[in-house]
C-alpha cells in the first residue's frame, strides 16, 4: 500500500505540467441522424492506462464513437468527460489514425515536418520518427504514392509525433496484408508500453487478443459488454458478443 502511493507521487514530480486527461467518463451518450439512432444512451468508463479494443458489428457506431471522444463531432445528448474536460478542449492532446489515412500532397518527410512545425515541436526528429515506422528510406517520396500499409504507418508516425496522451485507431489494419498489420501492431504495442492510452477499433479477433487489455463490445447503440481481454474472448457474457464472435470464428 505504501508503495502504490509512492509511485504516483514520483510521476507527478516527473510531469508537473499537464494534468492527465484520463480517466474517461461517458454518460448517456446519444447520437442520431434524423430518424436513424446510432448511439442511444451509451455509458463507458476507461481507466488511465492500457489498450482498450472496441468491437461490434458494422454500422454500430464505432467510428462515430471515436470521433465523439476525439471532439470531431458533437453528440445529440449525453456527456463526455476527459478528467472533467470536454472532448473539444482536449483534441490537441489526442491523436487519431483514421481507417483511410489522409496524407498531405507532400513528401513523406514533409508530412511529419508539417505537424511538428505547427505544434512547435522539434523538427529534427523527422528521420528518427520515420525510422521508427520503417519508412526512413521513403522520406523523399510523395506521400500519396505510398502503399496502403506504408501510408497507414506514416499516419501512425504522424499521430505519435505529436506525443498524444490518447491514441485512437480506427481499423488501422483493415485492408493490410499480415506483415503490414504486424508492423502496425508492433508500433502500437510500443506506444502503449510507453504509456500512451490506446483506443483501438478492430474486427480482427487475433489482433484484439494480442493488443487489448480490455474489450468494449457495442451493440444497438450501447456498450453490451466490457471485460478484460482474458475474460471476454473465452466466455463472452452477452448474447450479442457471442453471436458476433461465432460468426467471426466460424466464417
Amino acid at each position: 500500500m505504501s508503495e502504490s502511493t509512492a509511485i504516483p507521487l514520483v510521476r507527478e514530480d516527473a510531469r508537473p505540467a499537464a494534468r492527465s486527461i484520463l480517466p474517461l467518463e461517458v454518460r448517456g451518450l446519444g447520437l442520431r441522424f434524423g430518424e436513424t439512432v446510432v448511439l442511444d444512451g451509451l455509458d463507458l468508463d476507461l481507466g488511465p492506462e492500457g489498450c482498450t479494443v472496441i468491437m461490434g458489428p458494422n454500422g454500430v457506431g464505432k467510428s462515430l464513437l471515436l470521433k465523439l471522444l476525439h471532439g470531431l463531432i458533437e453528440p445529440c445528448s449525453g456527456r463526455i468527460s476527459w478528467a472533467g474536460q470536454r472532448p473539444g478542449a482536449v483534441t490537441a492532446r489526442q491523436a487519431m489514425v483514421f481507417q483511410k489515412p489522409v496524407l498531405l500532397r507532400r513528401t513523406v518527410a514533409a508530412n511529419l515536418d508539417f505537424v511538428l512545425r505547427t505544434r512547435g515541436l522539434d523538427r529534427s526528429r523527422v528521420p528518427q520518427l520515420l525510422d521508427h515506422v520503417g519508412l526512413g528510406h521513403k522520406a523523399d517520396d510523395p506521400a500519396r504514392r505510398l502503399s496502403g500499409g506504408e501510408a497507414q504507418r506514416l499516419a501512425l508516425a504522424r499521430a505519435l509525433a505529436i506525443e498524444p496522451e490518447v491514441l485512437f485507431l480506427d481499423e488501422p489494419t483493415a485492408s493490410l496484408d499480415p506483415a503490414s498489420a504486424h508492423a502496425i501492431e508492433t508500433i502500437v504495442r510500443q506506444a502503449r508500453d510507453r504509456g500512451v492510452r490506446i483506443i483501438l477499433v478492430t474486427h480482427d479477433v487475433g489482433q484484439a487478443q494480442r493488443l487489448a487489455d480490455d474489450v468494449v463490445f457495442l451493440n444497438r447503440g450501447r456498450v453490451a459488454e466490457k471485460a478484460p481481454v482474458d475474460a471476454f474472448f473465452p466466455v463472452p457474457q452477452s448474447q450479442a458478443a457471442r453471436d458476433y464472435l461465432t460468426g467471426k470464428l466460424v466464417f
Partner: protein
Amino acid sequence: MQDIGQALGLALALVMSGDGDLFEIVALSLRVSLSAMAVACVIGLPVGALVAISRFPGRGSVLVVMNALMGLPPVVVGLLVYLHFSRSGPLGFLGLLYTPTAMIVAQTILIAPIVAALSRQVLEDLHSEYAEQFRSLALSRRHMVGALLWDARYSLMTVALAGFGRAVAEVGAVIIVGGNIDHLTRVMTTAIALETSKGELSLALALGIILLTIALGVNAAVQVLRQTGTRLAYV
C-alpha cells in the same frame, strides 16, 4: 485595304525584325496584365481560401455573387474605373486616368473575382478531403489556410494563369481607362483594334500572332503544371 496574304507576310517580317514599337506594346501588355494577375492573386487567393473553409449564413449568396463576378463585362469594369478616376470622379485627384496604373486597376477588378471563385472551388475540394484530419490535429485557421494554399499550388498556378489569360486578351477595360495612347498606354489588344480600324492590317496581324502565341504559351504552361503535379503525385 491590304491583301491578307501580303499583310501576313509583313506581320511576320515585323515580328522577326524585332521592331521597337511592336515590342514596346508587347512589353506594356505583359507588364500590365502580369501586375494585374499578381494583385488579383494577393486579393483573390485569401478570399477564395476563407470562403472555402468557412461556413456562415448567406454563404450560398456569396458563392452566387462570386461566380457572377467572373463574367464581368470588361467595358463595364472600364466604365466604372473611368468614372472613379476621371477628373470629376472621387479618385480623380490621383491623376491616374490614361496611365498604366489605371489599366492595372481595371484588369485587377476584372480578374480578382476569377481568381477568388476558381481558387475557392479548388481549395474547397481539397479542404473537404483534409478537414477531418485538420480538426484532429487541432490546427489553427492560419495553418489550415497555409497548408491548403501550399498543397493546391499547382492547381492555383493554373488559376492564376487563367486570370492572366483573360486580362491579356481583353480590350474593353484598357481602352476606356488607358485611352490607347501611343508609347504610354497602348497595349496589344487596343493596338489591334486601332490598326484594324485604320486598315493597317500588318501591325494588327503581327500583334495578333504574338497574342495567340502568348495564349498558346499560357495553355502549354497550364498543361505542364498539371502534368508536373500529377507526376509528383501532388494533385
